[in-house]
């Protein structure tokens, strides 16, 4: 059973002169603009749950209220109305002494512009949360050193932040949050200030760390690609309201409204969609024990010029080509074993589509998808790959099944508009 690490219940945050009145009007259905005279409604009726160990991304453009929302998750801002629960603690009513205790032990934060102390070494910056907590010097330096090792900066411990590049500084920011050793990690536009290449590197590092650490992460970003790459689930915010919560594939394939649909129209699908989400059952398949005649018949029926060969456990052994099989038959062969070509490169179901283009371009057959045990679980034909790149609302006639296992001549592929 998964535990709820963070929960927001009908949270409102209004800045301004008469926040209470603004919330009352908003509850009665007033819009953000209609209550503008009472105050600025930054967050309106936000409810969500983040499971322990989950990466929950809040995505929205600037002014959508996402920064205000994340700041209520560690009490930097208090909700005007509604409840924010961190584990069992209700942050909307907690006393300031207890709140400091919670911030020291339960929740830490990574900031957009790193927020490091310029006059302290990388090690002392990393040890800062432990220093606040009152951990003695030797112990906190040891633990900060371990956190720096996790992000690969142990050699830079004695340097000052100003001697580091932006990406390295943010790794210090991440190490500092990890040194605090809290269950919940809030990341506020943590990678937004970095160059695209460094940003990608940091995203990969975060995913890698997350596999071993299993923290509960609430990640704020304005970049949908980043949201979809990192998030187990995504909340899309607009004008203070959460308009949709779901997995990246749910949001891509079933956008809640036009706003989300427009938003996801620009997303880099090659990073979000995986082989598993577009693969189809393999048809041109012959058992290794089946013999050349069965192989030829299968290829004829499927109108293809090659077939994948599986053994008894459905593990992928390779492929056979029609010409090889015909020649072998003439020579009186009765087994496929000698004809199997092993130069196939299967991919795992989790492979993003972006990494399928190169194998698809080289292979005569749809790309085989195999599980951890090497069993063939499906194939991704090139045409499916191209079709998946087109956003849903632009898909032509609904219900036309994608043609599976089409003979993949290069003419066919180029017939699909890019």
């Amino acid at each position, binding site marked *: 059973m998964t535990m709820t690490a963070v929960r927001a219940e009908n949270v409102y945050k209004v800045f301004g002169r008469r926040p209470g009145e603004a919330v009352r009007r908003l509850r009665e259905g007033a819009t953000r603009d209609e209550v503008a005279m009472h105050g600025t409604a930054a967050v309106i009726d936000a409810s969500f749950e983040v499971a322990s160990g989950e990466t929950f991304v809040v995505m929205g453009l600037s002014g959508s209220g996402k920064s205000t929302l994340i700041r209520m998750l*560690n009490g*930097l801002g208090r909700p005007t109305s509604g409840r924010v629960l961190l584990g069992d603690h209700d942050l909307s009513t907690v006393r300031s002494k207890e*709140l*400091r*205790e*919670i*911030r*020291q*032990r339960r929740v*830490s*934060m990574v*900031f*957009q*512009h790193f*927020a*490091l*102390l*310029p*006059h*302290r070494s990388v090690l002392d910056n990393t040890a*800062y*949360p432990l220093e*606040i*907590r009152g951990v003695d010097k030797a112990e906190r330096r040891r633990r900060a050193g371990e956190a720096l090792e996790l992000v690969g900066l142990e050699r830079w411990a004695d340097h*000052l*932040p*100003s*001697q*580091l*590049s932006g990406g390295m500084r943010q790794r210090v920011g991440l190490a*500092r949050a990890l040194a*605090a050793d809290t269950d919940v990690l*809030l990341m506020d536009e943590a990678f937004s200030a970095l160059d695209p290449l460094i940003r990608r590197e940091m995203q990969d590092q975060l995913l890698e760390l997350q596999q071993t650490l299993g923290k509960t992460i609430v990640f704020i970003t304005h970049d949908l690609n980043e949201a979809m790459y990192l998030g187990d689930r995504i909340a899309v915010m607009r004008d203070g309201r959460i308009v949709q919560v779901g997995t990246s594939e749910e949001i891509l394939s079933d956008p809640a409204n036009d706003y989300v649909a427009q938003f996801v129209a620009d997303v880099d699908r090659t990073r979000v969609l995986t082989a598993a989400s577009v693969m189809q059952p393999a048809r041109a398949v012959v058992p290794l024990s089946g013999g050349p005649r069965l192989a030829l018949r299968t290829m004829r029926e499927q109108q293809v010029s090659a077939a994948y060969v599986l053994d008894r456990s459905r593990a992928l052994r390779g492929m056979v080509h029609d010409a090889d099989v015909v020649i072998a038959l003439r020579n009186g062969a009765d087994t496929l074993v000698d004809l199997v070509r092993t130069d196939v490169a299967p991919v795992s179901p989790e492979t993003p589509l972006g990494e399928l283009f190169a194998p698809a371009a080289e292979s005569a057959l749809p790309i085989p998808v195999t599980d951890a045990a090497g069993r063939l679980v499906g194939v991704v034909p090139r045409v499916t790959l191209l079709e998946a790149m087109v956003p849903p609302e632009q898909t032509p006639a609904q219900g036309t099944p994608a043609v599976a296992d089409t003979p993949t001549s290069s003419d066919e592929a180029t017939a699909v508009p890019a």
Partner: protein
Amino acid sequence: MTTTSTTTTGLPRLPLGDWVADGVDWVTSTFRGLFDQIRAVLEWCYGSLDTLLGGPPFWLVALLLAAIALLVKGWRLAVGSLVGFALIAAVDQWSNAMNTLALVILASVVALVLAIPLGIWCARNDRVSQFVRPVLDLMQTMPAFVYLIPTVVIFRVGVVPGIVATVIFAMAPGVRFTELGIRQVDREVVEAGHAFGSGERRILRQIQLPLAMPTIMAGVNQVIMLSLSMVVISGMVGAAGLGRDVVTALQRVNMSLGFEAGVSVVILAVFLDRVTAALADRSPVARALRTTDA
């Protein structure tokens, strides 16, 4: 004192000055005990400091001051200071210069002890800031001579009214720079302090003050320079030092004495300015920000 009931412009005469004078009189008589104590404490502090600086032989004090310059800045400033001090001694103004230095140091310390906490308070509280700002404007733009009148009334002639007038006049940049420095501290870094569960005092001590230190030190430099600029005026109410000689020179139209005392003030000013500027440069944050050999 009485004033006429109409002005030359025909508007009724507003006795603003009388009100202020009455106020000062009331304050003087009501808090006489307190003022006498302040006067005694300041006189004692000044006396001790003056003995410390003026008591030992010239060469010892000059070498010590040069050593400070060497420590905070480098040998050029140290040598330059020595030459300057020798010049002061050579025109027979050394004792006066030490009087003045004692006055400047005491006035600056008092001004900073008041100004820095007030600046911190202003930075943390917008209302206080809104109230303090016009008061500072008043303190800084009011002709400095005007302070001398109530301070002489309250503290009587001598070094103390000079110190008090100097403190009032020199305080403003100390408050302003402290407030500015703390307000300029990156909001996100302060937020990080809160986010990791730090208390307000710790944030002030470990984040806001260190990060504001270069700016605060610039304020300290300004306070000291303004204090020095007040010494001549202090001389008018009987404070010993270079100021008194300048005033005397002015009264007797004594060109040579005026120039010698004036040059001594300049040498002290340059010394104090360079040393405090070097101190500002040596704060950990200022040094850290210079280190960018990634």
